[in-house]
């Protein structure tokens, strides 16, 4: 069967399941006795197993299966949750993630997982825990517990059917069938077995459920409750006639002991088995289904982009229509166009909203990462996350992950000190790392704050001098925030030694570049021994920004409002010269002027005005005045990229399409301020 059409859905859902497993495992670590959490994890694992088996990723299914066994042991209170055991489970989740990743990038999801499988096996078989007696119980009642486990959840109706049939002289048989490992068409074999059984009796229940069996969502074994008049041995022989069957066990099903055993289950002290493999009940799969089918659909982001593009064209045409209707002064046309404008405005906000996703999608991988990092670095860290529901444009979400990972690694590696050091400094041994997201105005802020060592001014200065970024004299006069900016220069690392965690690969300069390419900015606040705060400011959406449209000769440019302080018109005489540079006195500050027509080589006319229109922009605490011919006005524009051919054009960050259908370039004022 061609599974390619399902692969995207499979990958998406697998990632979701892995994520929820990660989250829940972290929760479980905090409250190891909460069996509800175990149940949830189990469900996620089970779904993953079923899906991967269906998709034919056997390695994936096998590993999940092993993991499930361990979780089952936990659920049945045979395995006590410890940090060590969770480490192994986490490890296997990592492997699963790697496999999914492999599949996502076109691989076949194969991976050598023998080590972790071995560890899981050890846990499952109790070699990780002291209490062996429980395992003996489990081993002794192996076959019997299979029955118990398989049909733990017979409902009253099923029980009464069994009861009734026994009274009428039928036998209730428990049939356990194991297919051969190399069986190719599992579903077909199941069908053949069912066919045989239905000729001689009636199937009351199967485990896994019939649907799951049809969809091949099982390993190589299944169990069936059969009502028949045949003897167990006859039934067995009949089933063995079907090819590719490895093993068949048929025994009389005793529902008296079943009901009794069922009661016992309410007593959590009672050990039950760890060998139950396919604990799938119809009840469970139905809850799963209700979880996944919410009132949402998945839409490929590309389609939304297409929709957005089409819509933008509509907006451009709308502009033209408005213009035409103004010229024609036709009442009816006027009203219709107005109405259309209103509706398309609403549409626009809906389309934009569709692209918004909670930042949670990025944040949710951090608890796990922090846990692992803290362990590796022998540090104690308490991660606090707030504002995970804050929504951001999808494209921003996709890009922001790596910079955040980098900053968090930095905070853990360089920021938060070792416990001993912390207590020496009079701080709590457990470090605090706080990750926040919130809306403010037209921006989203993401902040990473730690109470660690902070930035060592002296070290940074020395390194900067050493790297030739600043001179000794300059270094004296640098403000704290300027120092902090320095660490984001390229090739700048104060790490004395390269560790596994940081100090290699990308530096903070890449973080900064990524954020700036998203139209955002990053600020650092830091106090020595008190901690650091990295604050990232991001635009709500990448697609629509507010700009000031300006004109230079015949050419129109857009300057993002976010970097504009204000606009001014100054007389020619007010322009001063300082060291061959034109400057103006702007509210007591000397602001250098940038003549855009020079920067952009715009062919100029002869006449020169006696007034200059100036847009004052800022980058951090530096300012510059961009000299233009005229200011057209403020406008919301749809941001477009210049395409893959024109990348890295100096001082141009993108383009937009104006109401008249022409393209205007967006000025990256950050590039114009040194």
């Amino acid at each position: 069967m061609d599974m390619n059409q399902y692969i995207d859905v499979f990958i998406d859902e697998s990632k979701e399941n892995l994520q929820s497993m990660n989250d829940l495992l972290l929760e479980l670590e905090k409250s190891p006795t909460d069996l509800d959490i175990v149940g949830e994890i189990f469900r996620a694992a089970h779904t993953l197993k079923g899906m991967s088996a269906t998709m034919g990723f056997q390695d994936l299914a096998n590993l999940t299966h092993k993991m499930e066994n361990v979780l089952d042991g936990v659920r049945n209170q045979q395995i006590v949750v410890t940090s060590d055991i969770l480490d192994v489970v986490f490890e296997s989740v990592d492997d699963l993630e790697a496999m999914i990743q492999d599949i996502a990038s076109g691989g076949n999801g194969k991976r050598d997982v023998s080590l972790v499988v071995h560890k899981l096996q050890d846990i499952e078989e109790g070699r990780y825990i002291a209490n062996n007696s429980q395992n003996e119980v489990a081993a002794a009642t192996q076959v019997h517990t299979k029955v118990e486990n398989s049909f733990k959840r017979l409902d009253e109706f099923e029980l009464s059917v069994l009861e009734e049939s026994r009274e009428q002289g039928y036998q209730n048989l428990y049939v356990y069938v194991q297919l051969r490992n190399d069986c190719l068409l599992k579903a077909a074999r199941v069908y053949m077995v069912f066919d045989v059984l239905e000729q001689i009796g009636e199937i009351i229940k199967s485990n896994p459920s019939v649907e799951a069996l049809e969809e091949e969502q099982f390993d190589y074994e299944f169990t069936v409750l059969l009502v028949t008049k045949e003897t167990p041995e006859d039934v067995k022989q009949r089933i063995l006639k079907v090819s590719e069957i490895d093993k068949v066990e048929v025994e009389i099903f005793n529902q008296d002991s079943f009901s009794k055993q069922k009661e016992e289950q309410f007593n959590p002290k009672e050990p039950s088995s760890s060998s139950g493999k396919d604990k799938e009940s119809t009840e469970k799969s139905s809850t799963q289904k209700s979880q996944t089918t919410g009132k949402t659909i998945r839409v490929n982001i590309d389609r939304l982009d297409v929709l957005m593009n089409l819509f933008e064209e509509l907006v451009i045409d709308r502009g033209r229509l408005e213009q035409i209707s103004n010229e024609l002064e036709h009442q009816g046309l006027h009203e219709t166009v107005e109405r259309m404008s209103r509706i398309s405005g609403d549409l626009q906000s809906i389309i934009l909203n569709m692209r918004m996703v909670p930042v949670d999608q990025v944040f949710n991988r951090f608890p796990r990462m922090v846990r692992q990092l803290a362990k590796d670095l022998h540090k104690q860290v308490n991660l606090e996350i707030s504002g995970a529901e804050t929504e951001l444009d999808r494209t921003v979400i996709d890009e922001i992950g790596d910079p955040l990972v980098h900053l968090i690694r930095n905070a853990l590696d360089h920021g938060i000190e070792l416990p001993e050091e912390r207590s020496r400094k009079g701080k709590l041994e457990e470090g605090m790392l706080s990750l926040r997201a919130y809306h403010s105005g037209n921006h989203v802020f993401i902040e990473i704050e730690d109470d660690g060592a902070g930035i060592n001014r002296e070290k940074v200065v020395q390194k900067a001098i050493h790297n030739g970024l600043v001179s000794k004299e300059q270094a004296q006069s640098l403000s704290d925030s300027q120092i902090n900016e320095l660490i984001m220069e390229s090739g700048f690392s104060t790490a004395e030694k390269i560790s596994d965690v940081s100090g290699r690969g990308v530096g903070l300069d890449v973080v900064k570049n990524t954020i700036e390419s998203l139209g955002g900015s990053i600020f650092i606040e830091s106090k020595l021994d008190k901690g650091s705060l990295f604050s990232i400011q991001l635009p709500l959406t990448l697609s629509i920004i507010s700009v000031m449209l300006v004109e230079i000769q015949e050419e129109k440019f857009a300057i993002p409002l976010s970097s504009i302080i204000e606009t001014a018109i100054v007389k020619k005489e007010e322009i001063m010269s300082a060291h061959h540079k034109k400057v103006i006195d702007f509210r007591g500050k000397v602001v250098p002027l940038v003549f855009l027509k020079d920067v952009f080589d715009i062919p100029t006319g002869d006449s020169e005005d006696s007034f200059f229109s100036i847009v004052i922009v800022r980058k951090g605490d530096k300012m510059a005045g961009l000299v233009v011919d005229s200011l057209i006005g403020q406008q919301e524009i749809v941001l477009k990229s210049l395409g893959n051919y024109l990348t890295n054009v100096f001082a141009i960050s993108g383009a937009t399409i104006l109401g008249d259908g022409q393209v205007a370039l967006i000025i990256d004022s950050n590039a114009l301020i040194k």
Partner: protein
Amino acid sequence: MAESIAQDLKVIVFRLKDEEYGVPVQQVGSIERMQHITRVPNTPEFVKGVINLRGVVTPILDLRKRFGIENVDYTESTRIIIVYVDDIEVGLIVDAANDVIDIPTDAIEPAPEVVGTIDDDYIHGVAKLDKRLLVLLDLKNTLSHGEVKEIKTMEGSREQ
């Protein structure tokens, strides 16, 4: 690329100065009339700027400039051929574009040592059809030579 000339090749024919060129039809998105081009400063001279191509901002290259042929004013017959190469979409300004033809494989010869003023890199082959001579362009090299290559390596070196 080599495989595509194994069978008959359908090409869009365009004219530059007094020579005819061909690009594989698969790589051509559309042929547009001249329209307003927004200049993009600080780009190579042959980059004329960008246009609004049905909502997509598309860079436009002047092929005459690219190949070092002298400039002429744009006329009624001047066209922009929108081409796709890998993930790059650009428009090429040509003197005229008005023909689509099939070229049999055996009519294609490897690029001769010297063809006009054009660097061999851009040329994929030459097709001889009766008395017509068609220069088959290798678009990848037409685009990637110079600017794109430069940028790609810049990015590459930063990643390391």
